[in-house]
């Protein structure tokens, strides 16, 4: 068999590609294959993004203007995200919040993070979580009529609330918490 490309040398590289159930075959000689080495080595991949983009395409946004929605920080259009499945910056999550919610439910099942929290940026988050837990314990203690325990928990909650407020004041007045150069 001769090479599909030059039609002169013997084909020694045989490629079979199946895209959407459609099979294509290519037969190349070593010489022509080398020129295509880049694409052969990095063959086009079925990726999870294509899958996500498929999901996004299938999902019809409720308002006609959504496709023109744009992130005010990075400028990425929602339309572009729906095509690639990739966002432009961390702010996009806020800007496309209403559009992303149903998508996240479909791909992730849940939409609330309960895992690791960065100790630096997340000190407030950790305090917030502790506070939630303490409030739940307080409700239980009251329900069980354990008032001494409830009073102890109430004091802990007040102290935590104060720390949270102080933290927010600092963050509001103090600017960047980070090590990266500001934009």
């Amino acid at each position, binding site marked *: 068999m001769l090479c599909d490309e030059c039609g002169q040398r013997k084909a020694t590289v045989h490629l079979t590609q199946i895209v959407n159930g459609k099979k294509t075959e290519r037969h190349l000689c070593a010489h022509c294959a080398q020129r295509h080495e880049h694409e052969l080595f990095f063959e086009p991949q079925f990726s999870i993004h294509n899958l996500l983009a498929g999901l996004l395409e299938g999902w019809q946004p409720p308002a006609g203007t959504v496709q023109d929605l744009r992130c005010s920080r990075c400028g990425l259009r929602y339309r572009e995200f729906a095509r690639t499945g990739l966002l432009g*910056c*961390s702010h996009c999550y806020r800007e496309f919040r209403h559009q992303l919610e149903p998508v996240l439910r479909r791909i992730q099942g849940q939409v609330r993070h309960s895992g690791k929290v960065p100790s630096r940026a997340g000190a407030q988050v950790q305090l*917030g979580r502790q506070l939630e837990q303490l409030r739940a314990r307080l409700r239980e203690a009251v329900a069980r009529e354990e008032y001494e325990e409830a009073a102890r928990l109430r004091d802990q909650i007040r102290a935590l609330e104060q720390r949270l407020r102080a933290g927010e004041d600092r963050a509001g007045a103090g600017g960047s918490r980070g090590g990266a150069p500001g934009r």
Partner: protein
Amino acid sequence: MTVTPGAQRVRWMEGGGPAADLVLSSRIRLARNLEDYPFPTLLGPEQGQEIIQLMEDVTRHLSASGLGRFELLRMADLSPLDRRVLVEQHLISPQHARNAATGAVILNEDRSISIMVNEEDHLRIQCLLGGLQLHEAWAVATRVDDVIEAHVRYAFDEERGYLTTCPTNLGTGIRASVMVHLPGLVLAQQAGRLLSQLGKVGMVVRGLYGEGTEALGNVFQVSNQITLGPAEEELIDNLMGFTRQLLDQERSARERLYRENEDGLKDRVMRAYGLLTNAWTMSSEEAIRLLSDLRLGIDLNVLSHVRPEVFNELIVLTRPACLQKLAGKELDARERDLRRARLIRERIAASLRKTTQ
């Protein structure tokens, strides 16, 4: 510095670890982004270089943190061949190897930790260990994450967790995966049925080299699909539980095959051994297929005199880029087939256990 396979120690390729007969490696990957920059999709070359600069400082902090010695390599400084070697060793993704403009990777000495810089996310922290050691890999990856986080500000949201370029990584940003060798299930024609059910339990299966690649040599990569909601340990526990079930199934498939057709199985293994130790030329597909049979034979004690690690080592070293790196020059397909056959003959000879008679 140069990245040399073989001469360079790559920890996961040495085998070892729990359930190492069936699990080649365990990997934890964490996706992280810096708050002050657009995601790599919109990152300009200058901003990309700024992030690399920032990560150079972080590399020094990592080296000082007691986690070993780290170095940062820019894609632009590596030859195309060296980049492909890193892909074949599972240290960077094929997409990353193409990113000469803004790509970099931070590696530790034994290559158990690799951090891709400016891949799909600003940082992809990976810990890769031999055998079934997902919790151990997580312990290392989260320590590396902590050291980095002390020096940069991550994009994080209380409700959504770590913010990632693609929402399929959102939340924990964790992808836990195991690379499993399942020749028994494939021979018993049960692998397809079992693995197709993975989606229902929130897992996904891929071939040896990630998304979109086929399961060469009966090696499959199983990982968690969901990243948002459950905590990291919970996701890892799920994958551990599922992997253990898969291993039980594989072991019983092997036992059944051996019981029902011992001669057929021994013949298959011995033919593979014969070809691997005598063939003069060999394609990479044939090599990987025969090496899988060889490993099955070692595990079933049909070939008790060959060390099992030779499989882990050879499925990587016989890939085109590693082979050329070992040869120290570019090789055409015919030369590669010759070299590959020779390398296999030599490494198997070197892996024979000394017989005590």
